[in-house]
């Protein structure tokens, strides 16, 4: 029992640190990708190729003057970014980061917990994530912040529906809500879920962009209309928390997309690879992180390619295109499963 608790605590700590580390270097990666897309050099002052830039940024965030508006609600003003950070870090608990490491005669699974409703847990955390933005935007006591917060909440609620419906079709296909089992299914038989659910994947991906407030859906912080959106009044590390939470969300979304649709930690043609035991587990985890990093890059690629939507376009896309498409996807999945005798 005690070793179990110690082992799980260490795993939680590692996932926590990796989330923070990946998010920190995602900010660096974002600037490098942006520079590459725009034919610039990007950050190159701090260390070779600027690789210490995230540390310098973090230090800057901590050292900056912290301003709390006097007319704002102080407790809620601080609660906002804390909640954003908390909910961003919570979803990593159910993601299967790898297989089972064998040390001695004990097996140590690289997933913190495989609850039987894993995907719904991710959903719950995502749906709760909007409060960080809403509370922060309201507590700032600023019209622009409030407008940004209201935009964020209506956007996230709208796209959550389509996201949920996309997942329903996936759950129909896999027959389980547990992320661990989904990965196991994709590893042992047949293809990855992207082959069975291409439309569902597309809907899920678009909704993931909207849920993380990334371009082209970054209307909550649209600087041409709203100054800075929901974090207009924030400074110092509280602003840093909001920005950082966004990158953690990207990391977790990428991990969830890889898990659900791209085979999780499974290697392609896994049964033909002459690796076994711990080496296979390590290779799988490395490959999983490869997939995750690719999706993080994809998030950046889209951001620096596609301009921002207008607000009515955003709502039309969510309600009139994605939701009907997702319902059609459920129907088509059901009909196909019935026709192929899989029910």
């Amino acid at each position, binding site marked *: 029992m005690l070793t179990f608790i110690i082992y799980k605590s260490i795993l939680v700590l590692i996932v926590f640190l990796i989330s923070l580390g990946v998010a920190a270097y995602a900010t660096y990666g974002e600037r490098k990708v942006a520079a590459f897309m725009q034919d610039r050099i990007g950050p190159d002052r701090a260390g070779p190729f600027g690789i210490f830039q995230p540390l310098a940024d973090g230090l800057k965030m901590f050292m900056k003057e912290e301003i709390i508006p006097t007319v704002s609600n102080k407790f809620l003003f601080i609660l906002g970014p804390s909640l954003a950070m908390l909910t961003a870090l919570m979803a990593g608990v159910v993601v299967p980061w790898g297989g089972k490491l064998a040390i001695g005669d004990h097996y140590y699974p690289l997933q913190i917990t495989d609850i*039987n409703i894993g995907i*719904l*847990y991710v959903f*719950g955390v995502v749906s709760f994530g909007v409060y960080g933005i*809403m509370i922060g935007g*309201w507590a700032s006591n600023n019209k622009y912040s*409030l407008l940004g917060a209201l935009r964020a909440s209506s956007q996230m*609620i709208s796209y959550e529906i389509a996201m949920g419906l996309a997942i329903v079709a996936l759950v129909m296909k896999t027959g389980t809500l547990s992320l661990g089992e989904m990965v196991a299914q994709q590893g042992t038989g047949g293809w990855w879920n992207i082959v069975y659910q291409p439309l569902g994947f597309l809907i899920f991906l678009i909704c993931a962009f909207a849920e993380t407030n990334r371009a082209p859906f970054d209307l909550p912080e649209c600087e041409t209309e709203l100054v800075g959106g929901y974090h207009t009044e924030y400074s110092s590390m509280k602003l840093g928390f909001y920005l950082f939470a966004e990158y953690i969300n990207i990391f977790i979304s990428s991990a969830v997309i890889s898990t659900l649709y791209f085979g999780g930690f499974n290697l392609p043609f896994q049964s033909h690879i002459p690796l076994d035991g711990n080496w296979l587990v390590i290779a799988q985890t490395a490959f999983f992180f490869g997939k995750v990093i690719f999706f993080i890059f994809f998030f950046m690629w889209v951001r620096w390619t596609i301009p921002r939507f207008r607000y009515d376009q955003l709502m039309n896309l969510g309600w009139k295109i994605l939701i009907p498409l997702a319902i059609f996807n459920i129907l088509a999945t059901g009909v196909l499963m019935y026709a192929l005798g899989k029910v």
Partner: protein
Amino acid sequence: MLLSQYLFFFLSFVAVLSALMVILDKNPVHSVLFLIVTFFAIAGHYLLLNAQFLAVTHIIVYAGAIMVLFLYVIMMLNLNKEIEPHKKNIPKVAAVISAGVLMMCLVALLKGAEVQMLPAARNSNIGLVDSLGKVLFKEYMLPFEISSVLFLAAMVGAVFLSKKEIH
């Protein structure tokens, strides 16, 4: 005492306290936030009863969707102490009387009730999604479908009401 008993008392304390704060706090936004805390405490109770599916859907539906809309509307209306209209005394008296009648009904109802222990709910699988789905789609198929029709009607009604003019 078992750990789950400590958790039960802690969650009950949080649920009751935050539920009280919902009605005691003057600021409507604070009330909504306390209501969300109450929902979380109740979801914790579901978890203690091994009903994970119920707990998570409770959080997704109530805390994640309905309360966001509540908060949305209250923030849009921007209610606060300064602009809150002064209430007359008659509604207050009426509210006190009706609340007292409700209290009396509850007490009368609960007086005859017996305290029963649920048969080992903690270790049963009754709340898991597997058994829940089977019960819902086999034993309660018809009520389930009828309630979904009800929701559809409510949705159509909401869309109808929010349309300014009908073409």
